[in-house]
């Protein structure tokens, strides 16, 4: 009886976990959609091609664009898409209406002054919104109001400097944009405002008048920044606590990225790696002598593979995925026109010498021309690179089904398809790690582990013969840790190699399926935690810039945008459904 209850409880727990995963994936998708639309609006408003988001950081082509004004960083865009729109519009106006080089030259040097000056310049840009676009104005206003509410709710507002910054922000924005301030704010800041009036009043009046000229506006903005800066220094000296001045700066950081409660779907971690910087940006492997590459089918007993294959076939049949139709859609996306011979006997086109005699023999017949025959043909090469790290075990069946369906459909479409995977041979560094310890743990050794690269299906093997190899993806004890950057390099190198009969034309596409940041415990400990992350990002950027391959990141329950410019969040909690297949197709469609 007791075991029955336990079983039901366990089933309930599983259901709840599955539901929460589903919800997380759904909100991740919605969030990414909001961000993509925001970026599209931003590109049109600012007229700059190449703007996009990675995580929440704005990029222009491959360079991050700094947007230091604090209210442009909404903590999350799930709860209030309008607020995110406001931030995106604000960034677009800033890019369009403000000269970044001039701004940089004028910028003061201490943290408080920079903060105030940045804010004022942002308000100036926002005040220049086209009157024919009331929506932009409303979005900007929404965003600023929400930021103000968050500021008001934070402990920062109770500090002397906090209330001054809040007051300056409110008063200046109301002045510059001529948008009214909410009455409850008026009450809150009244006394501070009175205290400040003698110092900044005269400049306040000038701000709105000069808002059309960045150079005319700057002296007044700088004067206000100077006032606030001086007050802040005065406050600090009065508090006279030796440790205090240092801790000021992190408090301002709070303003930039107000980390709210962490209820949104995680974004892949990303940071600068000091270890990589110290080594002149050169990524190192401590030793490559233990790295191996295997055909997956050689590692698994044939008997076992047959079982996996049976399971996989049943699963795909149950999900009811229409592979031929997917194949047609893929060939629509991937095929390109190419010239293939000639069609003769045409009424117009190029003269066909061999038909000229016809003019003499039958004078009414003018079919002496030929035209070029254009055919659509798929020259694309597509590689799936599967992250076989421990956390992916849970999704191994779903990933196998997705990859199998696509491998079959790509073959129907005439594209060359490879299925690759990457993992490590051991945990915690393996033999490479032991060698490093034996050598006395030299600093910054680079990657420490035995990398395993697995080939589940290579490009020359047809799907029919590679079926059991693909099923090898379901063997969970292959899954250990992952070194993503090297794997991406390896997969791109395989893409660049010509297969049999294929010339160099056509698209080269790499789809990386992963549920997390690169993870290798020993390497992380011996270098620093961002070492592999930054290498992955560098590798992806290098391949994109050189144009050697189009790289897509398919994140399983994780936003991979920090690494992959083209990315998608997949919901595999229900396995591979027609909807999932369709999302991947949509990603390829959009990138055409």
């Amino acid at each position, binding site marked *: 009886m007791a075991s029955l209850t336990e079983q039901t409880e366990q089933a309930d727990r599983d259901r709840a976990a599955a539901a929460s995963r589903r919800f997380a994936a759904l909100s991740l998708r919605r969030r990414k959609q909001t961000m993509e639309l925001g970026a599209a609006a931003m590109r*049109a408003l600012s*007229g700059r091609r190449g703007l996009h988001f990675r995580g929440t950081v704005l990029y222009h082509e491959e360079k991050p664009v700094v947007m230091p004004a604090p209210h442009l960083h909404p903590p999350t865009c799930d709860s209030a898409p309008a607020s995110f729109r406001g931030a995106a519009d604000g960034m677009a106006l800033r890019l369009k209406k403000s000269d970044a080089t001039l701004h940089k030259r004028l910028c003061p040097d201490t943290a408080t002054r920079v903060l105030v000056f940045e804010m004022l310049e942002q308000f100036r840009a926002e005040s220049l919104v086209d009157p024919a676009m009331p*929506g*932009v104005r409303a979005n900007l206003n929404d965003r600023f109001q929400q930021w103000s509410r968050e500021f008001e709710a934070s402990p920062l507002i109770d500090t002397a400097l906090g209330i001054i910054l809040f007051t300056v922000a409110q008063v200046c924005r109301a002045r510059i944009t001529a948008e009214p301030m909410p009455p409850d704010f008026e009450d809150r800041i009244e006394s501070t405002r009175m205290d400040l009036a003698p110092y900044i009043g005269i400049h306040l009046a000038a701000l709105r008048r000069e808002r059309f000229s960045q150079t005319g506006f700057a002296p007044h903005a700088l004067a206000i920044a100077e006032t606030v800066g001086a007050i802040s220094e005065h406050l600090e000296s009065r508090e006279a606590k030796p440790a205090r001045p240092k801790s000021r700066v992190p408090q301002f950081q709070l303003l930039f990225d107000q980390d709210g409660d962490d209820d949104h779907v995680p974004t892949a971690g990303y940071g600068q790696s000091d270890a990589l910087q110290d080594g002149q940006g050169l990524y190192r492997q401590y030793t490559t002598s233990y790295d191996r590459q295997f055909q997956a089918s050689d590692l698994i007993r044939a008997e076992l593979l047959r079982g996996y294959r049976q399971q996989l076939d049943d699963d795909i049949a149950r999900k009811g995925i229409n592979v031929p139709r997917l194949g047609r859609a893929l060939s629509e996306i991937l095929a390109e026109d190419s010239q293939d011979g000639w069609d003769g006997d045409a009424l117009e086109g190029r003269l066909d010498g061999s038909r000229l005699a016809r003019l003499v023999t039958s004078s009414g017949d003018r079919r002496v021309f030929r035209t070029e025959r254009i055919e659509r043909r798929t020259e694309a090469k597509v590689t799936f690179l599967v992250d076989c790290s421990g956390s992916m075990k849970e999704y191994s069946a779903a990933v196998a089904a997705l990859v199998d369906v696509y491998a079959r459909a790509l073959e129907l479409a005439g594209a060359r398809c490879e299925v690759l995977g990457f993992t490590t041979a051991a945990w915690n560094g393996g033999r490479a790690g032991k060698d490093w310890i034996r050598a006395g743990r030299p600093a910054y050794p680079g990657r420490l582990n035995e990398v395993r690269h697995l080939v589940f299906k290579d490009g020359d093997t047809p799907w029919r013969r590679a079926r059991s190899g693909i099923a090898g993806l379901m063997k969970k004890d292959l899954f250990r840790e992952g070194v993503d950057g090297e794997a991406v390099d390896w997969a791109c190198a395989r893409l660049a190699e010509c297969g049999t009969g294929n010339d160099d034309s056509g698209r080269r596409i790499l789809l990386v399926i992963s549920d997390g940041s690169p993870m290798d415990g020993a390497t992380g400990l011996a270098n620093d935690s961002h070492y592999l992350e930054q290498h992955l990002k560098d590798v992806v950027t290098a391949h994109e810039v050189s144009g050697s391959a189009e790289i897509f990141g398919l994140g399983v329950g994780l936003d991979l945008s920090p690494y992959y410019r083209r990315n998608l969040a997949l919901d595999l909690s229900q396995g591979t459904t027609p*909807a999932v297949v*369709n999302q991947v*197709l949509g990603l390829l469609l959009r990138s055409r």
Partner: protein
Amino acid sequence: MPDHMVSVREVFNLDSDLMVAAFREADDHVPEADAAYRFNHDVTLAILAAFTRNRRMLLQGLHGTGKSTHIEQVAARLNWPCVRVNLDGHISRLDLVGRDTVVLKDGKQITEFQEGIVPWAIQRPVALILDEYDAGRPDVMFVIQRLLERDGKLTLLDQNRVLDVHPGFRLFATANTVGLGNLNGMYHGVQRLNHAQIDRWNIVAALNHPPAEDEIEIVLARVPEMDHPAGRDLVASMVAVAKLTRDGFKVGDLSTLMSPRTVITWAENIGIFGDPGKAFQLSFVNKCDQAEHGIIAEYFQRCFDRELEGPSSPGHVPDNAFAAAG
């Protein structure tokens, strides 16, 4: 021939002291003048130069910017007869030059040469406008090549005739591209033009989308019932949406853009459906790729401060599109 001079300042309301030749009498081929038409300053001066100084002029611009209309309206105010020919891919050399046809004369079948539009036009004081010039077939272009020379005579080979060009004949062409072919995928069927062709045009002008203020006036002139303060704001927002679609096209997010003509249609449809959002959906959104509806809805929100309703989803194909049938 033109018989008197008129002042550009008076007739076209442009800031210029130029005097141009015009006809006193209008004949059947003179287009009707549109009092609400707004002239683009530079392009008008270029067209007037082409009329007065007998220059061959090619006017280039995106679709819907009113290239042919612009030339027609100038001709209308000069009382200059004007004929338009659309050079699509099916017009042949013989259509333009003329051909032998079988006719009945005194009860007998005889063949007779019938002049095409080109010999007809060049013997009269007529402005010939070749629309969609870049869609014309290469063999057709070489008929026109000779005419592009100012004193070029037209030779009818089958007739053994040489036609003199009337001093009042003028030649214009309009095109979506400057002979570079279908670079952005928007104009299928256009040809890359022979450079010798392009070289023979004396004036090449570009007519782009008008500045926002002008476009607002153009729309209001067409749809006068919107000419009140609230209507003006509405039109300003519509023009702003159109501008965003053009910028979106430029940065590669959209594959369709709104021409001023579409803005006018939209304004007219507001009169029918009563709601700007609904009319927008029917006049423009439904012409676009489903995948782009989400972005267009964002543009609409920016300019109207409300969401675009309707069956638009940012997804591409329904989620169950790849479920097995049955």
